[in-house]
């Protein structure tokens, strides 16, 4: 299939894997920033194909994972209101708050709807003038333009019954926080392809220079991941540290300029709390003063909700690349996607959930290498 199968071609994959094995002479720790990349790596078994000396650690780029519990509780408090239609991206519905998830609220009579685009909320608002339509505007820079467009269009169209519950975070401050930590292990990054499709990769250049790390902006298909890994290892082996672009079929250095402009007009940068990590200065977006009439946090008086997280879960260390899911004693036993204990297990893109769904055979496999190699027998 065009634009899909080409990037999943087993023969091409073999060649790139062989190149990676050929040029790797030392152990290296690489972090893929995005949850979508983590998902792809584990879903396609890519980590399994790399040399043992290459350690892929999983980054903070899962929007569902890093949305703070208190924000989820705020969402639930709003969704329970009788005159509200609460709209969300699909995978937020199953994220548990302190008391149930959005599915539970829906089953109790709350009007909770999955939308594919925030813009769908405008149509819902026009069709339901006596209801307040609240959109859960979460995500990284990738979803920011569409979310900004909702606020912009609502104002343009004079719709008074639309509001956004904003929990937007930014990638570069999180990478700086990881690199600046005394516990940092990460030596090179597979940079966030979709984020850079909006933002370009200009702002990654000072990061790469300051911390002397290679950053290769990488896509999400298996061959993208393998090619990005090859490019990062090549830089490390050659002693270079630059920003390179593996995802050039989608993006360039400037990104999507009109989208960036819209984001700037609607949002401003502010401090943000990250689930599992804590507060990071200037790491997110809030609505600008002129859009505050659309701010659900103010409209619904939920500012006081402040939920404390469990200190037991190691998701903070996983999101910073210090530990892996298998390092957690609760992984797969006390903590599963059905009963998540923390951030990285709640979303399908979270490292723990991805390991659980696709990779929980790996632990047992380590102890009996080769057993699974002969998977053949199929036609």
């Amino acid at each position, binding site marked *: 299939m065009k634009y*899909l199968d080409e990037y999943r071609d087993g023969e091409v994959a*073999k060649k790139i894997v062989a190149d990676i094995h050929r040029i790797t002479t030392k152990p290296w720790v690489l972090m893929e920033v995005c949850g979508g990349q983590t998902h792809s790596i584990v879903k396609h078994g890519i980590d399994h194909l790399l040399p043992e000396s290459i350690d892929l650690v999983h980054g903070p780029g899962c929007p569902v994972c890093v949305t703070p519990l208190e924000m989820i509780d705020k969402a639930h408090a709003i969704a329970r209101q009788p005159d509200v239609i609460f709209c969300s*991206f699909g995978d937020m519905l199953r994220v548990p708050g302190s008391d149930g998830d959005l599915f539970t609220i829906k089953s*109790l009579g709350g009007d909770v709807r999955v939308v594919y685009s925030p813009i769908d909320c405008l149509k819902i608002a026009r069709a339901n003038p006596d209801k307040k339509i609240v959109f859960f505007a979460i995500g990284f820079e990738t979803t920011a333009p569409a979310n900004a467009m909702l606020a912009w269009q609502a104002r343009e169209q004079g719709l008074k019954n639309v509001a956004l519950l904003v929990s937007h975070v930014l990638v570069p401050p999180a990478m700086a926080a990881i690199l600046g930590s005394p516990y940092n292990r990460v030596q090179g990054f597979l940079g966030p392809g979709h984020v850079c499709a909006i933002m370009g990769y200009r702002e990654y250049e000072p990061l790469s220079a300051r911390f002397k790390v290679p950053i290769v902006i990488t896509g999400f298909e298996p061959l993208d991941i393998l090619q990005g890994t090859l490019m990062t290892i090549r830089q490390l082996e050659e002693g270079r540290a630059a920003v390179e672009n593996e995802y050039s079929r989608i993006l360039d250095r400037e990104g999507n300029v009109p989208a960036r402009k819209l984001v700037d007009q609607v949002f401003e940068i502010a401090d943000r709390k990250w689930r599992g990590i804590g507060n990071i200065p200037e790491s997110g977006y809030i609505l600008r003063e002129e859009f505050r009439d659309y701010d659900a946090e103010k409209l619904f008086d939920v500012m006081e909700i402040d939920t404390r997280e469990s200190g037991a879960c190691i998701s903070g260390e996983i999101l910073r690349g210090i530990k892996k899911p298998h390092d957690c004693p609760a992984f797969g036993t006390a903590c599963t996607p059905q009963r998540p204990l923390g951030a990285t297990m709640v979303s399908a893109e979270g490292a723990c959930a991805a390991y659980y769904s696709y990779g929980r055979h790996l632990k047992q496999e380590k102890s009996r290498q080769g057993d699974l190699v002969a998977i053949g027998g199929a036609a």
Partner: protein
Amino acid sequence: MSGPAAEDSAAAPELQALGSCALPIFDHKQIVLGHGSGGKLTAELIDKIFLAAFSNPTLDKLDDQAVLTVNGSRLAFTTDSFVVTPIFFPGGDIGRLAVNGTVNDLAMSGATPLYLSAAFILEEGLAVDDLRRVVESMRAAALEAGVQFVTGDTKVVDRGKGDQIFITTTGLGVVPEGVNISADRARPGDKIILSGYIGDHGMAIMSQRENLEFESTIASDCASLHGLVAAMLDTPGQTSQDFLHCLRDPTRGGVATTLNEIAKRANVGMQIEEDAIPVRDSVKGACEVLGLDALYVANEGKLVAIVAPESADAVLRQMRAHPLGADAAMLGEVVAQHPGMVLMKTGVGGTRVLDVMFGEQLPRIC
């Protein structure tokens, strides 16, 4: 912290050891949509509520149908309810689905389907023309499948208390002598065969529901499979009909869920190859757009067969000669290792677990 979280900690000591956490919900106090998804939540509901009350050796097999011996005859007996929005979709409608779904549940035991019942729950305001269209479609599907409706029931509920039309069909069939098909009969070495392209039905419904327009319309694969099963049982060169160990139609939850159910039921592992799984380009593209995985998407005219290794090639040839099995493929085999777990070799050469779906399949953010 309050509610389910606190109760959960009390119930599970391992959680307490990790500190009380605000997150987990385990036992639902209300039914959520995921309980009807065919995934883990459905299994939990069946286990904790229905099996707890009704348990008996026949039910406990958890096959798609019960096979009962009555006066020396083996009868296959099954029931299924149909709720679908929209009620008309490319490739079928709720009426055709209600006939084929129940016929297929009978066919998965190797039975010859004979009689059906139909119970209708109609919502006040439903257009009689729509009902007539659905019933006509049921008549045609029953004729094709060689079954007769021999009893039925009708109820009407207030507007808003139903979704146009719900149909429950119950089916009765006869299992031929020498046929012994059940999920617990999968054994190491057996081959896993799939009868054709996956995900067509689910994506046909989904693209109608989301008003998605693709270059080519995706049509449901809705079909009665008993003819294909009969052809498989007639595979030439076999000394008995014992080579067909297990059959399932991968409806809700898709092929991934069906394979897991068989693996758990028979306490065996499975290894399959991603590249061997037939998926249409249109379905693959639609899944990609919606952030879904075709392996978890519903089918209404496909079956998974677990076949003795020495007969597998002949069965596959026989299936390919039948119109409903023309695109049949060998996916892999049953193994003794990792019992209850299905592993898949991916297109790029990696290996991963093919898990059961938890609840509803949800589109990802980005």
